[in-house]
């Protein structure tokens, strides 16, 4: 019996040694079936060379796996995706909803926490559309910056942290507009009427159209510096709608005297106002009340 087993054992052992690259890898990746695993484990007990090989492979694997641990998805990526999914949902419902929606309501989100707030402003605007009036220096400066494509100092994912490090502890406003894709492109530092400011540039995609939306965040700005424009009361917040040389702008000053001014050449005053009201900036303010 033993004389028949011996050569087979040698063959088997030789086969294991010859295939140790494959077996060690599959062993460490837990891809061997139970019988193969047992056979290899037995073999390793008696084969120093293969045992050392498996140890080396294990060390390599640990090195690679430890190094490749990746960070979790940043919150803003999740938020951005949620908005994009909202847009998808909206597109699915668009055909049905178009008949019943007024032109004012076409960007309003279904569901979501912003719905009530958005509905309130829509109702308000529907009754009393904003009439932008000649604006003061701040809004004019924002529009002037909107029309100049100055190079950005930071782009993409790093924009928020960069603003907090170089400007002020703010979160870039995000927009909840199902039919528009609005992505923050980047930012640069600037100044408005003697105040430190940051210009945020967004890219708005509406079907085949792409255009720019500019938000200028102005530090330490008092309400009375926002002269001109038409005041629109929204809850206990007041927004101003301006006409700066034919281009609409919407301004807002939060409770920390941080001024926000939005402008886009491609939007009407009403559209811009709806956009700003749908942003998390106003949502934050309302929720914080």
């Amino acid at each position, binding site marked *: 019996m033993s004389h028949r087993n011996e050569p087979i054992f040698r063959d088997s052992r030789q086969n294991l040694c010859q295939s140790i690259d494959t077996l060690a890898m599959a062993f460490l990746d837990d891809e061997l079936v139970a019988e193969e695993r047992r056979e290899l484990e037995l073999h390793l007990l008696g084969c120093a060379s293969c045992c050392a090989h498996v140890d080396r492979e294990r060390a390599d694997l640990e*090195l690679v796996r430890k190094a*490749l*641990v*990746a960070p979790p998805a940043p919150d803003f990526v999740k938020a951005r995706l949620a908005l994009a999914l909202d847009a*998808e949902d909206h597109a699915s419902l668009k055909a049905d909803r178009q008949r019943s929606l007024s032109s004012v309501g076409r960007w309003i989100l279904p569901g979501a926490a912003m719905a009530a707030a958005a509905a309130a402003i829509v109702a308000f605007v529907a009754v009393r559309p904003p009439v932008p009036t000649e604006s003061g220096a701040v809004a004019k400066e924002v529009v002037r910056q909107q029309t100049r494509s100055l190079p950005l100092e930071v782009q993409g994912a790093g924009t928020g942290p960069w603003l907090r490090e170089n400007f002020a502890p703010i979160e870039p406003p995000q927009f909840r507009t199902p039919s528009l894709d609005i992505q923050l492109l980047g930012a640069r530092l600037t100044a408005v009427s003697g105040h430190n400011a940051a210009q945020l540039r967004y890219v708005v995609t509406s079907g085949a159209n792409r255009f720019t939306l500019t938000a200028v965040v102005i530090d330490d700005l008092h309400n009375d510096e926002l002269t001109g424009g038409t005041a629109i009361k929204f809850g206990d917040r007041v927004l101003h709608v301006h006409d700066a040389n034919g281009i609409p702008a919407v301004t807002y000053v939060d409770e920390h005297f941080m001024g926000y001014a939005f402008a886009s050449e491609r939007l009407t005053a009403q559209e811009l106002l709806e956009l700003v009201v749908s942003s998390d900036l106003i949502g934050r303010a309302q929720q914080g009340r």
Partner: protein
Amino acid sequence: MQAVREKRSEFERQAMVHMDALYGAAYRLTRNARDAEDLVQDALLRAYRFWDSFEQDSNCKAWLLRIVTNTFINEYQRKKRSREVLDAATAEQGATDGVLVHADATVRQSPERALLERSVSDDVQRALEALPDDFRTAVVLCDVQGLSYKEIADIMQTPVGTVMSRLFRGRKLLAAELRDFALAEGYVRSDGAAPPETGQESKKPIDLEKYRASKAREGSR
């Protein structure tokens, strides 16, 4: 309206929970946060649009990773000409011949180069850049996502043996690249630790099915 809500709710329950994993894969595949953000967004939007085609009983994470991988490969192919990346086919041929050498590999092992490397994260991303796309994809799917050889083979639409081969060689290249900074960071000891391996052992085929076939032949004798 109801159907849209149900679809969204199901998608969030089954797919969105894998967002961190998908981002991790995208981050290692693209080697930078900005591209990873875009890749995850594109892939998940695509997944949402084709949610009806997802077979509810199958592995959702693997399905999503397939979309991430395909999106990455397609996007990458489009941009390929503008990037300096080693061609996978060439490297694979080189590895099969037992010569596993990347043009940058020797440069990266120099002490001067090591001194220039400032952070572990940068090192890892640089090391990943040395890998051909196919090798990197196999390593990311296995070592970042923990997928089985079969699942990776399905995603990459290649035989399991090819997956093993890419995985084996990808890890070897990566480990060699990482060793310098691993020593510096204390992940491995310099005394008695595994020496860097080259392509010597790559002459042997890395294929579990071939091993099993030879084992079966041996058993039938």
